[in-house]
């Protein structure tokens, strides 16, 4: 499955040589996105208004709305871009692993490494995830589906290698692992844990989770 970025105009729609207008439009989007990223990071989702973002980008509110339908879409686009950056690395970590532990820890080492570097933005995205609208939730689940496919792949290969029982409930297992992975972020956010500390805890948790499914 490909992970198509919404940040990049698709090649079929974009002429090889960008017109000056298209270039200007692209530059506007980039300016808005970079200002928005900074403000969401500083103030959270609710705390940053479109007006603040426009001002920080040095343009009118109308110009922002010409590129993005609403604040929600703007925020989603930032998260999508981030997902895309880490997805390829997570995929590689999962695919090259010799054991389930190696695959799961490898995948989430990528994610922890990336997100712990920009915790406020992650916090904003977790905060929003609990109260967001239904369309936004659907978009988000689109991203998650790809990550879950990777996780399921790691676990299924573990079943094939005989690490887990052949009838192990891989889907449930993936959900529990995901819950633990996400829940651990609160240690980074509220207790300033390092990536290494998070991974070591995740590794212990994984042992408890996998224990009953071992072949």
């Amino acid at each position: 499955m490909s992970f198509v970025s919404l940040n990049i105009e698709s090649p079929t729609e974009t002429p090889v040589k960008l017109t000056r207008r298209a270039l200007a439009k692209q530059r506007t989007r980039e300016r808005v996105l970079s200002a928005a990223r900074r403000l969401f990071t500083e103030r959270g989702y609710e705390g940053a208004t479109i007006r603040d973002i426009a001002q920080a980008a040095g343009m009118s509110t109308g110009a922002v709305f010409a590129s993005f339908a609403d604040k929600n879409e703007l925020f989603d686009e930032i998260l999508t871009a981030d997902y895309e950056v880490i997805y390829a690395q997570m995929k590689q970590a999962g695919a090259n692993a010799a054991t389930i532990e190696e695959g799961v820890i490898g995948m989430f080492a990528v994610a922890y490494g990336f997100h712990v570097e920009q915790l406020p933005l992650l916090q904003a995205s977790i905060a929003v995830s609990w109260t967001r609208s239904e369309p936004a939730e659907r978009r988000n689940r689109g991203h998650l589906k790809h990550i879950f496919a990777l996780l399921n792949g790691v676990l299924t290969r573990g079943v094939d290698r005989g690490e887990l029982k052949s009838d192990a409930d891989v889907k449930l297992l993936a959900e529990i692992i995901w819950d633990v992975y996400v829940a651990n972020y609160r240690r980074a956010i509220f207790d300033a844990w390092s990536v290494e500390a998070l991974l070591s805890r995740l590794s212990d948790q994984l042992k408890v989770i996998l224990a009953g499914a071992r072949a």
Partner: protein
Amino acid sequence: MGVRHDQKQATREKVLEAARDLFNETGYEETTIRAIAERAGVSVGSVFTTFASKAEVLSHVMDRRLGELYAEFDRVVPFLRGSTADRLGSIFAIHYEFETRRVKLFLAHIAASYSPSQDPGLTPYGRNLRLTEMLRETLLDGIERGDVRPDLDPQTAIDVLKAAYAWNYRMAACGQASATELSAMMDRQIQFIAQGWRL
């Protein structure tokens, strides 16, 4: 205590009750201190002399609710029977039952505690010590009764259970899942993990 103290206490009660209802009806971000004062029938100034911020109001609302919940638990816990997994299932089912009564309030609390602009007055999500203690006692009791492997590290198991418990609320956030559905999901997760700690 004097009249002033009584008055202050009465204001506090009114504010917390109004805030609880408003957070649940319209959401935390959408609710202003002014709206809380209006609903409580007190002045905006008196809200600010009682609480430092909206986040602090939310923290107190949640603390009070937990107080009610654990009063319920004190009655129930001695009667829990069955395997360790069953007992844990009952503990979580009671939590789901309680929190889904005012689900929007609960979700607002989670969202607010993660916000990067959050006030320091807010208790982080997942810092529920009573729940942690209850799970620990249930697991240790399971070890004592020979239902749980003695080499299980309770803290790690608690971590896993709490993560599954907390993130199941996701289903309530986007799909309006009922307490029964949340408990059913949790039971499957507990049973799965319990396969690993049985002797």
